[in-house]
């Protein structure tokens, strides 16, 4: 028998990158918030510069709740299920994955909000890829700009602006949408190799610039600047310079006295009252059941868990899952196409032993619709990113570019000379939703509590594979201009699989027939249910989702602050 707790105004499921952001405007406005987090608090003492533990033993995900619920995946509805991974992409902790992610912190391009209308205008409606269910977002960049700004300052993002109110600054990204003001901090420092790559890009007539990061480039809000120690890739920050919600918005929300953080809270279902509206959340802590009643439920558990919880929360009002009467939950899913990278071997040391993945040089000339696709056979593009990041075990496992076997004396001579001479680029590509790609509940595999896990059915389609091939060409060109003596490319993409950048499943849009949440992030069918995270995003653009998801979360929370009585469930 579950213990029923005192009702709160808002319960947030998940205190990660987006749940952790939403808590702040709510509590600052005096709204009572209970944050249910499956993980625990981790601190800087828990973030040793230990490659073995961080990068090879999947710590701390390996001992966490999410690891019991890793989704299954298959390419199409008629494909066999792939072997399940052993580490969930997301971390359960206060702060969630914002504790250890790469912390690149991008705004989307204006085109990303208007893919349908802009593609139609520029190239004709026939250029929308067949089978895609893409829609324009219900608003454009101008609507979300103030929230990007809010999060950048509140959380702390370092970067170089390229377009302030229409005035282009060539030191930044000339393709970005207009922004009101500069970043709160200058970009992370460069280094010799990054300077060389920037020079090579300029030789090609491109427009390189340092990328934005939710990492302190100098002391900010009484937290240290980045130490560039080289363990930022899947590691937390030992000096709190990586601006997770655990060291920024959550403590500030707690300081208002209005946020109650409940850790080790394993949420199972969302309860629906007899009035057909969500009435609260069921969860377990140490095996003991609790029911947390709330006037508003905000779902912020990452895309897979957001969808899973909705599908598991059936009731008379919602027999196919909460907010799923239109059968849109799980639809319009996609894993961001961020693979198909390019690696290069240089005849000199890169000196990448120190640095971080967010310390790098970007080229956006080939991203989204920043270039003319008139004679091409795809839409969208990719952000080319080179960065400074290397650790010993990873270096030992480096690609030998076909020059030597992977072990033995020849290998040893090769690694002695070349351990610090390779560089792998990261190419995030515009990805769209398709009819065939979706999330649902696995019919067989269950978590230890007996609940079905999420199942991913998705593959990269022709459009995205063509983007991959095109951007690989550009990346190879860039590397060779900088002096690379060998280049290798990954495959252009097959099954999507379980991803760190998962989008859709609870898409946001004005049309309730094709979208789960409205333009403010609240469910069309259950108005006091809000969804936070990239599961509401209908396109990815060529940049990672975190800042956008955080900006949307702030916006949803602010909407709730301004309209609390209109949105909240009233007790009958």
């Amino acid at each position, binding site marked *: 028998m579950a213990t029923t707790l005192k009702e709160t105004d808002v319960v947030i499921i998940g205190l990660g990158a987006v749940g952790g952001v939403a808590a702040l405007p709510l509590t600052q406005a005096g709204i009572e918030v209970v944050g249910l987090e499956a993980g625990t608090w981790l601190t800087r003492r828990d973030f040793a510069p230990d490659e073995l533990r961080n990068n090879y033993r999947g710590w701390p995900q390996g001992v966490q709740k999410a690891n019991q619920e890793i989704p299954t995946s298959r390419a199409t509805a008629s494909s066999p299920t792939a072997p399940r991974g052993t580490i969930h992409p997301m971390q359960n902790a206060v702060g969630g994955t914002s504790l250890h992610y790469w912390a690149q912190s991008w705004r989307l391009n204006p085109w990303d909000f208007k893919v349908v209308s802009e593609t139609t205008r520029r190239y004709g409606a026939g250029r929308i890829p067949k089978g895609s269910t893409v829609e324009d977002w219900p608003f454009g960049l101008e609507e979300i700009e103030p929230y990007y700004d809010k999060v950048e300052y509140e959380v702390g993002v370092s970067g170089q602006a390229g377009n302030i109110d229409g005035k282009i600054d060539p030191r930044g990204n000339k393709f970005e949408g207009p922004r009101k003001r500069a970043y709160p901090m200058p970009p992370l420092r460069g280094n010799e190799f990054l300077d060389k790559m920037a020079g090579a890009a300029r030789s090609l007539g491109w427009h390189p610039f340092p990328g934005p990061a939710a990492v302190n480039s100098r002391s900010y809000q009484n937290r240290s600047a980045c130490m560039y120690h080289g363990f930022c890739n899947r590691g937390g920050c030992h000096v709190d310079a990586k601006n997770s919600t655990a060291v920024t918005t959550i403590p500030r929300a707690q300081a208002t006295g209005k946020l109650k953080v409940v850790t080790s809270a394993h949420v199972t279902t969302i309860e629906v009252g007899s009035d057909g509206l969500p009435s609260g959340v069921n969860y377990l802590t140490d095996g003991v059941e609790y029911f947390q009643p709330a006037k508003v439920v905000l779902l912020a558990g990452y895309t897979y868990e957001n969808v899973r919880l909705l599908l598991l929360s059936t009731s008379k009002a919602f027999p196919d899952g909460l907010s799923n009467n239109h059968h849109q939950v799980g639809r319009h899913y996609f894993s961001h196409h961020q693979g198909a990278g390019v690696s290069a071997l240089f005849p000199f040391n890169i000196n990448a032993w120190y640095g971080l993945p967010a310390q790098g040089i970007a080229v956006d000339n080939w991203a989204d619709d920043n270039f003319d696709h008139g004679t091409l056979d795809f839409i969208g593009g990719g952000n080319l990113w080179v960065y400074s990041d290397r650790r010993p075990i990873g270096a030992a496992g480096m690609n030998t570019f076909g020059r030597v076997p992977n072990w033995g004396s020849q290998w040893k*001579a090769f690694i002695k000379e070349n351990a610090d001479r390779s560089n792998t680029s990261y190419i995030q590509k515009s990805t769209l939703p398709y009819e065939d790609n979706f999330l649902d509940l696995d019919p067989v595999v269950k978590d230890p509590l007996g609940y079905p896990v999420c199942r991913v059915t998705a593959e990269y389609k022709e459009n995205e594979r063509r983007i991959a091939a095109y951007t690989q060409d550009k990346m190879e060109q860039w590397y060779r201009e900088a002096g690379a003596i060998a280049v290798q490319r990954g495959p252009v993409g097959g099954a999507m699989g379980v991803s760190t*950048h998962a989008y859709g499943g609870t898409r946001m849009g004005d049309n309730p027939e094709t979208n789960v949440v409205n333009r403010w992030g609240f469910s069309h069918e259950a108005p006091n249910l809000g969804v936070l995270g990239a599961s509401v995003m209908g396109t990815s653009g060529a940049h990672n989702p975190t800042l956008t998801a955080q900006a949307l979360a702030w916006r949803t929370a602010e909407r709730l602050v301004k309209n609390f009585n209109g949105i909240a469930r009233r007790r009958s």
Partner: protein
Amino acid sequence: MTFISRRDLLKRAAVVGVAPVAGTFQSRDDRGAESPALHEPGVARPFQGRDRAREPLENLTAGEMDILDAVVARLIPTDANGPGATEARAAHYIDRALGGALASSRPAYTSGLAALDRYARSSRGAAFTQLSATDQNSVLIDVETGAATGFTGSSAAFFALLLNHTHQGTFGDPYYGGNANFVGWDLISYPGVRTMVTAADQQQLEKHALKPNHKSAYETDMFTKATARLEDESLPRLDARDSDAKAEV
């Protein structure tokens, strides 16, 4: 009472694993392939076992450890380019880890090492540890490519596991028992774990002037030492960002 610093403890632990004879890795020259005069293809040569007191085993049997020792010595050999997995004590790392984070691989080692030795005997006519370095290399190539018989599943999967763990044991933080005396980090010129890297440090590195500091992450009490008992698959790759582009050859 003499105070023994943690660093000294680490150093002593590492020294126990190395032969007491000076010029250790020179005495292993004839196991490598770098000296053609000593190298006669096809001639079986007895295994140059450890010239030192056997260190305490934690999870492997003595027989398994002998085979593993011989395998890692071929994967990252001691040769003209300096010390290898033997001096790094990679096998000791694996032995220790099999009782902890790599516990789920214990069955794979039990069956894999036995299969490897059986295959060596049936195909090359002697126990793996008794074969010449050349024949050991030939056996390992067949295990690596999946041509070897007698393994549960493909021998290639076991080989990949061995190689990954040997890398961990050679290039991981010495706290875990491998990379003894920072032999692995020195091979690849990794200047070491630092909690702060200034712009001046980076410039020193770029001038090839940053000296290795030979520090473990756990030199001090700065960090907690939580570890996870976790399935250790070959190099978990959640997303392609972390992997080199692997060419389809």
